[in-house]
């Protein structure tokens, strides 16, 4: 199977300093992880032009984009205690968003393979009109919206340790996007309850599986299997995009879940089962702030998808969270039933 790497981007721009965990070194670790696969010339690197305004306004407001560009042009600064922008950040963000589009195009051309988008800044916290959580533009959302604009149905699986509030809010009421997230909860950004199921036009198409600190890989896999799989199979996506954060790793300094790099390999295999045919899976780098864990996780995740004879670290078992998975199932059912009751009541004139 072919590996298409749309990137790297963010290696020379958008610098928050070495104290900031969302730093350029992350991309170097990711690329080391790709090199460790030993594929060398077999990896395809398509050109990654910056996303155009027309691509971005599908998911961001024009006012926000203009403000972000002007903010960077004036020298940038701290947008909130977590999120910074520098003079080059507008271009870096557009390149990151454009890389996702390039991955989609390359996969369509190839008709096979797996796309990987190693870019920064990450994207899944960025909302329609707001930067936050290190994110300026929502890269996975820009890619998904480019597909739904062509009538495609998109599944987004987000296994970053943090809930992707931006992606959820952008597609909250979109019947063409199914958003599935496993994440530590309660935790930053505060959203991601199982009761958040989507808007009136897309009830049930947001699937949140909140997990307690310490949850291990078996819990995350059970969450996908028991909570999300039935909805995914019913939805029947044309494309599968992954918000591929590696900060759910045990060693990550910004999260408290307890996954190994081998768990990400298992999750990648599971998610690949949801693709309708080859060449319809792309993984977008989100979080991941321990450089060693990041490198190993990239190698193990991509190795699993490419069926390489790798030896990932062992999957993890036994952490807390199985009760929360069961609770998520019942919370979702109750929330969906409540929506259906309201709809029938309105339709019945009650």
């Amino acid at each position, binding site marked *: 199977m072919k590996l298409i790497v749309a990137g790297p981007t963010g290696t020379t721009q958008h610098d928050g300093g070495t104290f900031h965990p969302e730093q350029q070194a992350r991309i170097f670790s990711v690329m080391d992880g790709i090199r460790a696969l030993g594929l060398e010339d077999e990896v395809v690197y398509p050109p990654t032009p910056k996303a155009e305004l027309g691509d971005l306004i599908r998911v961001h407001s024009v006012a926000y984009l203009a403000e972000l560009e002007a*903010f960077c042009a004036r020298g940038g600064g*701290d947008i*909130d*205690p*977590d999120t910074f922008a520098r003079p080059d950040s507008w271009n870096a963000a557009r390149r990151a968003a454009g890389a996702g589009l390039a991955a989609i195009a390359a996969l369509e051309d190839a008709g096979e393979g797996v796309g990987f988008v190693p870019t920064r800044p990450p994207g899944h916290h960025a909302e329609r009109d707001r930067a936050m959580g290190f994110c300026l533009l929502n890269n996975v959302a820009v890619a998904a919206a480019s597909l739904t604009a062509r009538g495609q149905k998109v599944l987004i699986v987000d296994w970053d340790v943090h809930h992707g509030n931006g992606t959820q809010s952008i597609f909250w009421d979109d019947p063409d996007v199914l958003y599935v997230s496993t994440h530590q909860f*309660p935790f*930053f*950004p505060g959203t991601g309850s199982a009761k958040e199921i989507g808007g009136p036009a897309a009830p049930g198409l947001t699937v949140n599986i909140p997990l307690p600190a310490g949850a291990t890989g078996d819990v995350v896999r059970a969450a996908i299997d028991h909570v999300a799989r039935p909805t995914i199979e019913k939805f029947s996506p044309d494309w599968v995009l992954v918000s591929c954060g590696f900060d759910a790793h045990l060693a990550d300094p910004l999260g408290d879940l307890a996954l190994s790099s081998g768990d990400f390999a298992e999750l990648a295999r599971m998610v690949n089962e949801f693709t309708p045919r080859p060449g319809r899976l792309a993984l977008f780098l989100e979080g991941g702030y321990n450089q060693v864990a990041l490198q190993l996780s990239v190698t193990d995740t991509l190795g699993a998808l490419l069926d390489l004879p790798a030896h990932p670290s062992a999957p993890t078992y036994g952490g807390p969270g199985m009760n929360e998975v069961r609770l998520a199932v019942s919370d979702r059912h109750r929330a969906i039933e409540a929506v259906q009751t309201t709809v029938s009541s309105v339709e019945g004139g009650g």
Partner: protein
Amino acid sequence: MNMSPTVVVGYDGSVDSTTALRWASQLTRAIGGRLRIVHAVGLLEHAGLLADHVAVHRETALGIAAGAGADPERIEWSVVDGDPCSALLRMTMPPESADLLVVGSRGSGAHEGLLLGSTSLELAERSVIPVTIVPREREAQDSSPPV
């Protein structure tokens, strides 16, 4: 507004949030209300990468509120995950309840005249309850209770 109104104030340790906290404390003293001090914890603070941490902010904030005359029995300290704007909005919506939201004119990291990074301007636009934005200059001009 109910008989014992709840005033939510955002506090992040900045000069502006300190001014807002003093103002909100004086207000609750004057009207016999409850004061809920909300501190949003983001990614860096959770990871211990900021200079101050929650315990320091709590001690400082409670001291400021008490010093400004708020009844210690009617002060609540809340730590909320999220960016400051989202965290403050959540504390004003069900199942929480509040009658007034008070914030400083800029917070840490915000920039004068820009919507981007301005928690106060965004809150003024999105809040479903009244918002008071306390200007930094207010403290120097007039420290009397705002009623």
